[in-house]
């Protein structure tokens, strides 16, 4: 029984998860290494890699700062409507990516709420980079906050109160007491946030305009190449994102192990705390 179940689980994960992954690299290399290199060197593909990195470089820090600040406000204080606030922070997770993109078109598009105002000032948000950043900001909004809030709630505020009593300023308390105790959780949230920011498809697809070399992110580039029947090109671009997924998974597993170690150590230490 035991062997059958383990065999079934391994076979299922192998066929359903490992084979698709291996297939990405196999198809990318289908015409050999030079063809792989050549398709990655295509100017439009390179431009899409640059744009994807740039969008992630805008979104991750903004949502990181928000996550830390929101976690402080939510986890360290008691106030009415806390549960509602947490639900609202989590809200972007339950909105379909395409709808996430659409709401920004409704705000900033030519027929949108602010459309005429923006048009008069020659500011373009939709079908340009700002729209892509905004849509990505929305879909990656909860990652850091939802990782930190339960962590900081569980740790309570005794250590912070002690630091304040000893004369530390609010910022010093945060910097030297709170931040070190949540650093692994913070990094965990950042890694997941980054993976989603670089891989987001639906929301970005709505606001991008799909201009090759200008507003095409790496996932959109894959779609374009696929539509043009350039299999090697599409899979080469996909291989970059598959590598991103593997790195994310590796870091995530490593961080979970770190957190577990730290947690075990923390439990051993706690009796000696005042």
């Amino acid at each position, binding site marked *: 029984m035991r062997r059958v179940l383990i065999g079934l689980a391994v076979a299922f*994960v192998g066929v359903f998860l490992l*084979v*698709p992954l291996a297939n*990405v690299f196999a198809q990318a290399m289908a015409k050999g290494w030079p063809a792989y290199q050549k398709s990655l060197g295509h100017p439009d593909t390179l431009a899409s890699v640059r744009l994807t990195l740039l969008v992630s470089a805008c979104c991750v820090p903004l949502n990181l700062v*928000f996550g830390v600040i929101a976690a402080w406000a939510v986890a360290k*204080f008691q106030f009415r409507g806390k549960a509602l606030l947490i639900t609202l922070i989590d809200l972007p997770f339950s909105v379909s990516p395409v709808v996430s993109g659409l709401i920004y078109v409704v705000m900033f598009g030519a027929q949108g709420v602010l459309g005429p105002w923006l048009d008069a000032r020659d500011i373009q948000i939709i079908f340009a980079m700002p729209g892509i950043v905004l849509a990505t900001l929305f879909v990656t909004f909860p990652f850091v906050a939802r990782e930190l809030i339960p962590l900081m709630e569980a740790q309570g505020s005794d250590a912070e109160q002690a630091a304040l009593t000893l004369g530390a300023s609010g910022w010093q308390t945060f910097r030297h007491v709170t931040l070190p105790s949540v650093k692994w959780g913070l990094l965990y949230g950042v890694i997941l946030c980054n993976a989603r920011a670089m891989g987001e498809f639906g929301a970005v697809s709505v606001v991008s305009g799909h201009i090759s070399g200008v507003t095409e992110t790496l996932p959109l580039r894959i779609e374009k190449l696929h539509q043009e029947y350039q299999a090697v090109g599409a899979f080469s671009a996909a291989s970059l*994102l598959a590598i991103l997924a593997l790195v994310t998974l590796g870091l995530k597993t490593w961080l979970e192990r770190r957190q577990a170690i730290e947690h075990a150590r923390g439990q051993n230490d706690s009796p000696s705390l005042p």
Partner: protein
Amino acid sequence: MATSRASALPGFGLTMGYTLAYLGLVVLLPLGALLIRVTSMTWADFGKVAFSDRALAAYRLTFGASFLAASLNAVLGTLLAWVLTRYRFPGRKFLDALVDFPFALPTAVAGLTLANLFSQNGWLGRFLVPLDIRLAYTTGGIVMALTFVSLPFVVRTLQPVLEDFEVELEEAAATLGAGRWRTFRSVVLPALLPALLTGFALAFARAVGEYGSVIFISTNKPYVSEITPQVIMGWLDQFEYASAMAVAVVMLAASFAILVTINLLERWASRFQR
């Protein structure tokens, strides 16, 4: 607003102000704009688009395929969670880490590689197509893609419950003469049910909103193989903003209903665990 013991910490006003401002700007304002825009439509206009034949066909496909995918995940996810928590075998940690792979892999890559795998010349298609199992560019393929992207939910909700589960209960049942299957069905399954339903609902919610992976593996024909996010995309491509918004509001209402269900299920599940 801050009360009781946590109030000695500084920075509540500042951090709460920033949290609400950022949440308002990035999430609530654009979502609100969509809802306000839609309320300016008449009921007749709204109904004509939101419940048009094309939209209804898409709802049927979206919810039907998502239901099938979530059901598949309920069975396979229970198997995976069971094997990962109950048995120790070489490669278990690797298998456990791999379960998160669909979360880390951008959906466009998942769709691209699955469509290729199941096509006539693909690694899996070359065995399946002669058996008349066609998964690329069919409804079955949509179910496959949705199962892939929502795979981790059931496993990750069941794992902690199975880890805490008292093996003594199963041993007692076995001592009283229950067979393996009887023990699983009458002792284990009822205790798992709340968590299993939560995982099912989470997987269902994810599948309903999914866009990226599906468009690669579907033929995307209106009335036949078009999922709801594609209907929104279709209206947007024709600059029919009002129609896109009407369908989007139906999707938002559906995700809201699922969100409420998940919250209720989680409350039920936590009552069982105590």
